[in-house]
């Protein structure tokens, strides 16, 4: 057996101890894309990797009328028909846990 001092494991151990940073927060995330000319699909989730089945996702007009009241399905997705009026998508996981997506930020198919 070699008794030589092996610096690599020691350095790795020190780095592990020093950089065990906390990433505990999970922020809401939502992504919408147009799947064809008529339909838009939104996917919700949280930054810790968990999905958001059953979370409210509303499509709201610029005049604050709710055009499509919806909830995400079991696959954390919701597909809806593109409204004629100007709109934004609100992923609402509770007060202060919302994501807004303006229609201008939705990618075309």
């Amino acid at each position: 057996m070699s008794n030589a001092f092996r610096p690599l494991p020691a350095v790795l151990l020190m780095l592990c101890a020093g950089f065990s940073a906390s990433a505990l927060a999970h922020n809401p995330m939502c992504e919408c894309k147009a799947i064809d000319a008529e339909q838009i699909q939104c996917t919700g989730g949280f930054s810790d990797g968990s999905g958001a089945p059953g979370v409210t996702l509303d499509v709201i007009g610029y005049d604050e009328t709710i055009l499509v009241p919806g909830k995400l399905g079991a696959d954390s997705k919701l597909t809806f028909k593109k409204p004629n009026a100007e709109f934004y998508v609100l992923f609402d996981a509770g007060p202060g846990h919302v994501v807004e997506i303006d229609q201008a930020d939705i990618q075309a198919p």
Partner: protein
Amino acid sequence: MSLFTAEKPGSRLSRFWHKWRFHINVLLLLVPLGFMPKYFADAALFRGDTGLGEREIGEVQVGPWSLRLAELRNEAPRLDGPAGYMKNFNAALCDSCREQVKATYLRIGKPRSLRAAGVIFFGTPYRMGAMLPIPEKTQADAELWITMEGWDGAMHQASIPLSQASPATLEWLNKQGGKP
């Protein structure tokens, strides 16, 4: 074969190591000392001993109420995985409004509605925290909007320029080169 066979004399380095290895290992105890200044600075910051945050923004009047706002870290937004860049703000409610304010929200740009008022401050009214997402395409002249909701249903809003709220964020945005 005896257990006490003399080892072959190795190189000078090997002999030095075998003779002093246990003494040298004591030096490892000094390693944590290098991390201590940062550790104690962070502990004081999170406990509030060094104030509300690294950089105090000041008192912001929001309707009849007011709050003291601070950046937790005086630095550019940090990337929080797929959720994008985040910036931490701390706030303390004024003495008279602690009982009256139900919720405080923070958002870049004027909220469209109370439902979309932005991120919510959580924690005690003496020291609340919020993690604000900073979109990469934020304009340099953007404003930070504070929305406060009272237990009586009242809602009050105020805004301060982002340049005043977080010069480090503005510098970061300018360095990004104004994404479309």
